[in-house]
């Protein structure tokens, strides 16, 4: 099977959906003539023209709202945030408008809109450019939150997101864009709300999403050398959450570690912990444990940044702790 980068897979998803449906258009900062700040939209302007690949000024509130208005009357916008950090400027648009218009109107409005862009830390971008935001959006009823970890998932989930009639928060891993993986030539989609077991194992379940899946897989490889068989489960969408898959896995392994890049307080992992405790309490041989980013704004210095992010060593230690091994 052919290999694509995560970036190419996303681009292919957008191009195919734009080809398929004229109501779909891409709008954001530098998406057109600059070919995308992270080159995800490279070539799309040449292919689809300025009507459907729309460069915007730096005005997140403005163009998010324009997307919402356009979606209210039946267009299917893809709004690119150069990074999800900047989405906080438009938080009101996503939370108060995108998420609520359908409910407030008694179901009169559908909002088929995808907000997408990179999230999480990259390399030494410091506090304002290194945030994890999935929990800020997953908190809000009315939004769906997607966090793909592989090129295959990125393409299939983005296509489903564009076809979905709800507002979608699609958070790409900033450091995953160059990562390669198998992507079939044939068209496919991945349903939203379905997790995926990235590695099977019987001793401990690690739940991780986006780039933390790869940290978890590395940890699983390291632990296999000690004879510990780790199952790595990627929920892929944070909301709706594939609770059934998670509980099935935890009931099998009886132990669970959740790895998330963001801050610990009220992170998405905290909700997962609650659901696991609530849904599989009698099956747990140890309390579920979280490995999270440290509870500080991201420092610039390379050594400090390294300290903040969950890495393989921290995950290995956490897995051993739920096995009561050191």
């Amino acid at each position, binding site marked *: *099977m052919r290999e694509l980068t995560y970036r190419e897979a996303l681009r292919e998803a957008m191009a195919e959906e734009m080809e398929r449906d004229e109501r779909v*258009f891409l709008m954001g900062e530098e998406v057109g003539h600059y070919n995308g700040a992270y080159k995800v939209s490279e070539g799309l302007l040449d292919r689809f023209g300025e*009507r459907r690949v729309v460069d915007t*000024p730096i005005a997140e*509130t*403005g*163009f*998010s*709202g*324009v997307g*919402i*208005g*356009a979606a*209210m*009357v*039946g*267009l299917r916008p893809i709004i690119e945030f150069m990074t999800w950090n900047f989405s906080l400027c438009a938080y*009101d*648009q996503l939370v*108060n*408008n995108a998420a609520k218009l*359908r*409910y*407030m*109107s*008694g*179901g*009169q*409005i*559908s*909002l088929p809109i995808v907000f997408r862009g990179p999230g999480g830390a990259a390399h030494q971008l410091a506090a304002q450019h290194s945030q994890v935001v999935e929990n800020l959006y997953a908190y809000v*009823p*009315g939004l*769906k939150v997607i966090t793909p*970890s*592989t*090129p*295959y*998932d990125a393409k299939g989930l983005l296509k*489903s997101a564009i*076809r*979905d*009639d*709800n507002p979608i928060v699609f958070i790409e891993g900033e450091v*995953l864009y160059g*990562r*390669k*993986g*198998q992507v*079939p030539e*044939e*068209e*496919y*989609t*991945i*349903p939203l709300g379905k997790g*995926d077991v990235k590695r099977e194992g019987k001793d401990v379940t690690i739940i991780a999403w986006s780039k933390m*899946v*790869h940290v978890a897989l590395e940890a699983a490889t390291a632990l296999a050398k000690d004879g510990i068989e780790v199952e*790595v489960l990627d929920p892929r969408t944070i909301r709706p959450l594939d609770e059934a898959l998670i509980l099935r896995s935890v009931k099998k392994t009886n132990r669970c570690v959740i790895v998330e890049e963001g801050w610990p307080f009220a992170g998405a992992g905290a909700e997962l912990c609650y659901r696991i405790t609530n849904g599989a309490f009698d099956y747990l041989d140890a309390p579920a444990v979280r490995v999270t980013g440290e509870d500080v704004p991201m420092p610039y210095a390379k050594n400090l940044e390294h300290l903040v992010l969950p890495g393989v060593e921290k995950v290995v230690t956490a897995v051993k702790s739920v096995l009561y091994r050191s």
Partner: protein
Amino acid sequence: MDRDLMLSLYRDMICIRRFEEEAARAYTRGKMGGFLHLYIGEEAVAVGAISAVEPTDYIVATYREHAHYLARVGDMKAAMAELFGKATGCSKGRGGSMHFFDMKKRFMGGHAIVGGHVPIAAGIAFASKYRGEPDVTLCFFGDGTANMGAFHEGMSLAALWKLPVVFICENNLYSMGTPLYRTLAVEDVAVRAEGYPMAQEIINGDDVLEVREAVRRAAKRARTESLPILVEAKTYRFRGHSMSDPAKYRTKEEVEEWMNRDPIRILAQRIYELGVANEAQLKAIDDEVKQEVAEAVKFADESPVPDPATLYDDVYSETEPRQDEEKVVPLPRRARAGG
């Protein structure tokens, strides 16, 4: 001057006035909760503007939007039922006073975060332009909005992309309880238009015919030239910001002076002067409207509350992509973790 038109404008304004007077009474009787922001005194703006455009043009309004809903949709029963939190309300009791919607009539909602709907209005107009449709979007907001970031971003994009929006500032001189001179460094909101840039016009918001004529011109320009415009209507709300506001920050003299310029009285005067109708005829209209309001209250009173079983309805749109559109091509297990 068109006789039927004048009487129809009069009727629309009286509808709003009587509806809101009754709503205020119902509020004090505990028939509804939440906030109730009355438009009394500003009726000429909504009625003049909405009467000036096509029924297919879009209306986007604020949380003070009963008037705009009535001027466009005219369904007093659905409006009153919404205030009463009933299942028969125009938003099924989910929105309340601040969130009236009627998508079929292109009434795109009451929005209650100041300025947040300005980019949305630009987006609706963007869609019209994208599809090559002739529709214009009217976006209403108050003077307080002129200080919000969302306002500037929406106006700026509308100008940049030449979107067919008529922005209508209902300048009632107060953003909640604070007078304009303490919130705005300029005297007129309209001057803000020049920087985007877009055309602007300041009008007497108490004269329904003047509003109608100005918005008719603005909408025509938006439609034929695809250009936005900012129309600032100077007006005044006779009541407080909401029901909990006794409006003590205004002098009695000031309020009286503006009440002498009651938009309904101004139109009635014009109607008499032109011999379109006499006092008895206007009173007959008023009596009819009062009857209609009474029926709306009765309807709202007798309507059922929303079924608790519907609590979770419409958080999400449940329409899934059709099955035949779904093609699942799975990856071999080992390749799934790849990336």
